[in-house]
């Protein structure tokens, strides 16, 4: 299945992984969880603070389906 994945701020360095296409798509066998996507791309789970699944907060064990949009962020803030 295809998942749109975006990695931001200090996690952007992990986007260079061969599994992740230039336009931010990763193909993985289903079923898969958010955490398993991170593992597949060698993104350390402890560096991920915020997970968005289709724009909604998700947990590391939340299941992901084909066509979903996932975003990973480290701890950030501003205002």
């Amino acid at each position, binding site marked *: 299945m295809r998942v749109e994945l975006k990695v931001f701020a200090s996690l952007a360095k992990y986007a260079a992984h061969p599994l992740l296409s230039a336009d931010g798509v990763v193909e993985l066998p289903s079923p898969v969880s958010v955490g398993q996507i991170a593992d597949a791309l060698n993104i350390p789970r402890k560096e991920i603070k915020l997970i968005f699944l289709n724009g909604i907060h998700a947990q590391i064990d939340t299941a992901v389906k084909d066509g979903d949009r996932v975003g990973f962020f480290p701890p*950030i803030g*501003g*205002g």
Partner: protein
Amino acid sequence: MSRILRINTREKRYSFESPSPELQALGGRALTSKMILNEVPATCHPLSQFNKLIFAPGLLSGTPAANSGRLSIGAKSPLTGGIKESNTGGLVSQKLARLGIKALVLEDKPIDDAYSIIVIKKDSVEILPADDYLGTTNGDMIAKLWERFGKRVGVASIGPAGEQRLTGASIQFADPKGHPGRAAGRGGLGAVMGSKKIKAIVVDDGGADKLTLHDPDAFKAANQKWADLLRNHPVSGQGLPAYGTAVLVNVINEAGALPTQNFRSGRFEFAGDISGETLAANIEQRGGIVSEGCHPGCVIRCSQVYHDKDNNYLTSGFEYETIWAFGAHCMIKDLDDIARMDRLCDDVGVDTIETGVTIGVAMEGGLIPWGDSKAAIELLKKVGTGDPMGKIIGNGAAFTGQALGVDRVPVVKKQALPAYDPRAVKAVGVTYATTPMGADHTAGYGVCQNILNVGGTIDPLKKEHNVEISKDLQIATAAIDAAGLCLFVAFPVLDHAEGLQLIVDMLNAQYGLSLGASDVVQLGISILKDEHEFNRLAGFTAKDDRLPDMFKEVFPPHNTTWDFTDDELMKAKTF
């Protein structure tokens, strides 16, 4: 003991007085709001001789406490018609505090058109003619005043917009490098300064002694822990210094809450182009400064210096709210053009949030096309020239919307909404509606719990708990503003219980008090009560706490609407 300096701008006279017992324990926003309530008739015209403009350093300002150099400026707002506290960095706060000045109060107004500058030094206060400076931009004004009075003096000045008393006018402050990148932007306080014909205030603390602390050892110990807390929290210690506040562009976009094309949707196709990551990469590549403080003693350093492609200085203090207002809100994706507009605003002296939102309203009204950054720059250049269209834009979103026959005007109490859609970040929506300031994200930054998972997690799309969280944050923020601390200390303080105690410890060590954490909460509540009381006397009612009708529209991608009733909102104001 520190004193209150009053300047009568009509008679060009000044006097020092000891604060009354009621004012003695107050600082920053607590002091400005109390004095405005006590001394300014709530029904007065904000540009009349009855209004006062009050500059008050926070309680910890002038001490070595990390991030304590913030200044509160209070008045009746010409934009909202209600009370205003606008908060800024720069050099003035710490210098006023070291000179033993608890508040500087500008009173009355001249009957002629002659402008003055005020120069405050250790042993003198001068009110000097300023007609030679008329029409000068804030950038040039700081350069001229530094040349005349010495590098690194504190400067607060107004640009042409303030001279014209436009309701979007800001007061700009020199940052440590002499750029006009810090602003008391919100609420049109530059127009109040213009009405009193004060072009600039210079504060020089040369020769002043260090502040005496009641218990220096206890202060030092608490401050060390305080600075460590700020440095070790990942948001204040890593995220903000690396990317500035613009790090929010991507996360707010990802959350579906980045207001795009005048609050039509929560995702901007070109968010990446205007993100903090792009901003930081441009600075790395071109030169400039990725991270600097807006005042000495800031250990977070979210500010930056941004250069164009040819490595020429473009702007400083280039913030998320500004980037959003001229960016996603106007469908503009050229970060350099957005930086040019930030600089134009700082120079002419208008609030970047108000003005960026106004440009979007002008696009909504068909004056210029969506996304056309060149047309936006040309329109902005008219502000402060005396051109009638420039006057309309400089008066802000509500005024411009009316001038152009627009019905989608995103304001509360006539002040433009900032960069989080209230339908997708409901805690901040409650703040926009209920803070006495008019739409203001800083007054109760519910983005923390709604989006950033700081200080807990609360669903941003539902109503549950969002009134309570906004109320609690409004109380805490008022207290932080009274202490003179930068609001970004809230990230570690919300996550770590000892943070609040350290603030209390520093206050106690400075003043010889024995406050507890609950006293700080009470201080926050009393500030809000004063402010709500002023607005009530000025004629505000529940109808002024509503968001405009446009927020009943369904907001993609989450397809939520603004659905709070008057009664629900009232709970955020009931203490």
